């Protein structure tokens, strides 16, 4: 199991370490700066932290020594917008929302998902980035729109461990897209997703779906789970089709989802009431878990605070480590918890963090 946990918050990247005495915060990096995402690359243990500096834009930093030292590397940058373009979306990096490592067979390759919706790829560990124009220039992009932000964004990038040319991306609100050729071409991949927020005749339009977060089972990559704006969906054919899970505990609304690294039938969610009320159902924070592919769910709250509580776990703020037994989550209220037993029980790491945007075991 991992003994390091990186918590990206609105005021810094917090490094937590497990010792025989328990988990403690070892250090705060980038103190005062909003850290939007953190990735520990399992191939070389490099740590990437994306900073949203507001005034000065988004920056990316990398550490090659476990966080002892950081260097600023390149952030994805959009090319010059053609004169006379009718594209209303600004061609400017608003948020570096997610990072994903390339395959084991392509060291140095990283993928970055951004707001306003561009996908980028680096071949040199972040020293330089290229916009994936094959996706950016899709005509369908004109119909995408922001989901909670002014502009659409790519929040999930899944690289198939069996074949690194197969990449799936999740977009709010732009559906799910799939490439089989390393990003040279793309196909819409949200068949079966339903958008309750659209007029009924458009509800199954793949291009405007709002999956909040998509994750892939590492050992069974044909299974993906999605926490969507109005429901839970599962795919068993590599994102070609999705089945809606009608009942998933106290609510089907939420932002985060994690899938067991080896068991595709096991996944965890952190539900909230609904879009217009993003707080735990009845004020009781729970983590829901299915172990049978979505046929049934348990609501787990041992060690979580009793009602009334208002924690919301955002889309990158629930993670499971390679063992499948250790999970961590952080809320927008600045609380973070850890479980050593697949979410049966939780213990609080801190009640005093800034709002948590993302976590990564390392």
């Amino acid at each position, binding site marked *: 199991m991992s003994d390091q946990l990186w918590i990206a918050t609105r005021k810094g990247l917090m490094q937590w370490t497990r010792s025989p005495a328990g988990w403690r915060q070892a250090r705060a990096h980038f103190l005062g700066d909003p850290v939007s995402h953190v990735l520990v690359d399992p191939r070389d243990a490099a740590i990437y932290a994306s900073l949203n500096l507001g*005034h*000065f834009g988004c920056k990316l930093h990398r550490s090659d020594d476990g966080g002892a030292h950081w260097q*600023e590397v390149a952030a994805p940058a959009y090319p010059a917008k053609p004169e006379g373009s009718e594209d209303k979306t600004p061609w*400017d*990096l608003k948020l570096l929302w997610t990072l994903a490592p390339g395959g084991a067979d392509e060291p140095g390759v990283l993928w970055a998902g951004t707001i306003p919706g561009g996908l980028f790829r680096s071949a040199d560990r972040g020293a330089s980035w290229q916009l994936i124009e094959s996706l950016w220039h899709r005509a369908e992009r004109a119909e995408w729109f922001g989901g909670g932000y002014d502009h659409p964004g790519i929040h999930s990038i899944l690289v198939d461990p069996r074949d690194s040319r197969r990449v799936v991306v999740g977009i709010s609100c732009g559906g799910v897209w799939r490439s089989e050729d390393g990003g040279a071409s793309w196909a819409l991949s949200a068949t079966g997703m339903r958008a309750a927020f659209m007029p009924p005749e458009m509800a199954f339009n793949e291009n405007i779906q709002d999956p909040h977060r998509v994750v892939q089972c590492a050992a069974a990559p044909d299974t993906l789970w999605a926490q969507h704006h109005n429901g839970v969906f599962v795919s068993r054919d590599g994102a070609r089709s999705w089945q809606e899970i009608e009942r998933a505990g106290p609510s089907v609304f939420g932002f985060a989802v994690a899938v067991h690294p080896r068991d595709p039938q096991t996944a965890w969610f952190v539900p909230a009431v609904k879009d217009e009320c993003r707080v735990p159902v009845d004020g009781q924070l729970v983590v829901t878990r299915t172990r049978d592919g979505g046929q049934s769910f348990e609501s787990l709250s041992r060690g979580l605070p009793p009602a009334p509580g208002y924690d919301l776990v955002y889309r990158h703020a629930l993670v499971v480590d390679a063992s499948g037994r250790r999970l961590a989550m952080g809320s927008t209220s600045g609380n973070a918890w850890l479980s050593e037993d697949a979410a049966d029980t939780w213990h609080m790491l801190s009640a005093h963090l800034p709002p948590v945007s993302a976590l990564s075991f390392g």
Partner: protein
Amino acid sequence: MVTVTFTAHLQRHFDCPRHELQASTLGEALDQVFAKQPQARGYILDDQGALRQHVAVFIDGQRARDRDRLGDALRPGAQVHVLQALTGG
């Protein structure tokens, strides 16, 4: 010669001393700064080369007007200050 000074808030990210240089527009002045300090470009300008939304530039006490193309003229001896607007919490 014109003088270009940067907000102290940028010093924590990289060295940005005061620059004295010859330039007749804001864009020319900033290009020379970025030639010496390439890292600075992404902090001051967005991906389209415009001033970032929350960066303010004052030329002889007046706000720079041409935020997209940086075409504001600089007289000899102009004092250019690059600051950040105050936001956050």
